[in-house]
């Protein structure tokens, strides 16, 4: 029986192997793009690609935990918008960039906490609860911004979203940092395995002494904070707090996770998988833009990818015998 100590690198490799099929898909995709879509591998495009996936990538870090624990969160898209609006308003009101960023993040956290209490304490179904908060928070965003974009007066704020370091845009660095931090949380702390256990068998986890409610509340609160942060970064990139952004972000994040091997039924998920899933989604979208595919067709494509992701999850579940 194998008894070698799993080092961090070995664990990472093991997780990558588990997602081997999706990595192959990504490589095939990239190969196809290399030959068929000119300009994909240009530096400018790759920077744009990385930037576009950065938002999904950030929230996917926490969505991983949410799905792993057997829940859903549809409210993240509204939180992103709301946090951006809050950040913009606070910066304009106080002139302090730090306060604005903090306010945006905290606003997200409060929504997350509300989600957590609804779902863990009051036992409301996660899908329904976050659907409800999604609507409520979207409404709050409109109310707060009076329906129009909130321009930001303090230009120092823009450095966050539009600046770059070593020719890599800041948001990308932030996303990479998030992936590392949450990867460590998943693999190196009790938080990760606890979430996975809860998703795998909630009653077994409870009987084993895991504080199920507390863990779930923590997961949703963290997700709220992260979505808030993503909203702040987005506001920085757009130099304003926008109350209206095409919806579907929550599902994009969930799709990316599912493509990355995170099971919709809970109990399974790796950070390596999430990375791959995010890249696949972003690559497909970017390629469509490059090829000049009309927006309407892109909707069809996104829906098809989500369907493919769910079917693939079912297939894997079937193979796992769940």
């Amino acid at each position, binding site marked *: 029986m194998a008894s070698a100590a799993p080092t961090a690198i070995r664990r990472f490799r093991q997780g990558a192997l588990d997602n081997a099929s999706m990595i192959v898909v990504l490589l095939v995709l990239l190969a196809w793009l290399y030959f068929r879509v000119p300009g994909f591998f240009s530096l400018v495009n790759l920077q744009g690609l990385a930037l576009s996936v950065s938002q999904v990538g950030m929230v996917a870090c926490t969505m991983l935990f949410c799905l792993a624990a057997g829940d859903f969160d549809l409210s993240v898209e509204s939180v992103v918008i709301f946090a951006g609006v809050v950040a913009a308003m606070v910066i304009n009101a106080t002139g302090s960039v730090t306060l604005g960023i903090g306010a945006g993040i905290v606003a997200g956290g409060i929504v997350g906490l509300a989600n957590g209490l609804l779902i863990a304490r009051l036992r409301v179904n996660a899908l329904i609860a976050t659907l409800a908060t999604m609507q409520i928070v979207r409404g709050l965003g409109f109310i707060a911004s009076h329906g129009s974009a909130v321009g930001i007066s303090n230009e120092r704020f823009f450095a966050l979203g539009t600046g770059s370091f070593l020719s890599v845009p800041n948001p990308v660095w932030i996303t990479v940092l998030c992936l590392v931090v949450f990867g460590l949380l998943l693999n190196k702390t009790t938080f990760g395995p606890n979430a996975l256990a809860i998703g*795998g068998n909630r009653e*077994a986890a409870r009987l*084993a*002494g895991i504080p199920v409610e507390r863990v779930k509340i923590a997961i949703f609160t963290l997700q709220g904070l992260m979505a808030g942060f993503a909203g702040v970064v987005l506001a920085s990139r757009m130099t304003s707090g926008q109350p209206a952004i095409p919806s579907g972000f929550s599902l994009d994040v969930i799709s990316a996770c599912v493509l990355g091997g995170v099971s919709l039924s809970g109990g399974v998920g790796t950070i390596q998988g999430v990375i791959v899933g995010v890249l696949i989604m972003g690559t497909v979208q970017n390629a469509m833009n490059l090829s000049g595919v009309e927006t309407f067709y892109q909707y069809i494509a996104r829906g098809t990818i989500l369907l493919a992701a769910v079917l693939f999850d079912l297939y894997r579940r079937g193979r*796992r015998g*769940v």
Partner: protein
Amino acid sequence: MTPTTEPYLQCEGISKRFPGVQALEGVALAVAPGAVHALIGENGAGKSTFLKILSGVYAPDAGSVRLGGVPQAFHNARDAIRAGVAVIYQELQLVPQMTVAENLFVGHLPHRCGWLDKRALRAAAERQLAALGEDIDPGVRVGSLPLAQRQMVEIAKALSRDAAVIAFDEPTSSLSEREVQRLFAVIRDLKARGRLVIYVSHRLQEVFEVCDAVTVLRDGRVAAEVSDLQTVTHDDLVSRMVGRSIADVYHYAPRTHGPPVLEVEGLLGPGLAASASLSVAQGEIVGIFGLVGAGRTELLRLIYGATRPAAGHVRVQGAPARILSPAAAIAHGIAFTPEDRKQEGIVPLRSVRENINLSIRRVLAKWGILRSRLERQNAERHVERLRIRAASLEQVARDLSGGNQQKVLLARALSGQVKVVLLDEPTRGIDVGAKSEIYGLIAELAGQGLGVVVASSELPEVLGIADRVVVMRQGQIVASLPRAEATEERVLKLALPVTAAARG
């Protein structure tokens, strides 16, 4: 009607080999018409293989099957059916979308020049079902019937084909008590009509209730043949099934008990009709016996804090303890393995290592950081100590056998500073050999000074392993008997609901 002595079904020297394993070797069986003959044995003893040979699915490598003296050579299942052999498997061979009547006569539906004769079909179906005493509407889709009734349709199907030999493979695993009794009534009726019944089951109480004779298979061979079940006991059969003496099966050895390690007083909560009090000493094995609905599981869950108690005092090693949640119980050294491994115990997609460490992870971790090395060592230690058979520590828990899964749950419970272990039906759904291993582990734990509480609905098991038997009935504890005073009769009488006992 007494069975005639001339056997109708005669199997001799049946052998069957599969790649790498001799499934059956020289198995002989003779059953007279009107007899109910049980076939028992551990998992892997060869029961299913034998049934498949009987029903024509497999052909034996050697040996003969004779019906009424005539040697048979079944090439497929249809040959066997035509010869009058019907096997009713756990997975019923019915078409859910078709009606009862259609299922009864599938393959030979009554027709007029090719047109389905619905009226004749319905009439014939009603006749068959009435003969069985079943009140099922033949026009109903089989898929909408509850399992017990579907089983009846399967039996009616067998009878409509004039089956002389009817074999049942684990028929009661999903039936309620009442449905089981209904099935037994039908089996007795089959007996009276001169049919020959073969009954394969793990549940020895049922074998004693409805069968006349029994053949014990072990490792593909006949280990024992008992022509009159009245002459043997449950333990005799178990001993033959595993090939060890009864003492070796239950691993019981008297030991000295220390001071009380768990004291429960006035416990009240959902599932208990009256307050419960219980005391377990160090090194003592307390068996809690009761019938369905007696409250065994509820009691254990209340002690463990899995269900919040409404009232009661608990003391662990003399010190008062407030146990309102599983985490609190674990902190006080009380461990628990749940009744339903699948629903409440195993996290199916996580590894053996993770499952074993589920409870202790928090304790081992420092500032929330996992201590992988300690976890791995804990898992390795328990895998060795409990002899858990798994391909590796990383194997997914779902792939383990029932017995090994139970051991994983036991390992989880034993991780950490444990003083008392509460085991709820620890050997449910596990075959006899693996049960014996778990009894051995229980005895070991008690020998090491732990207090052990085992709740079980299997009376021989409780009588076999416990130092003291606590009897529950309809939500309350009615007696606490030391081993010497706990006889089968006495315990059963105490466990039966009051009205039945008064009547009986």
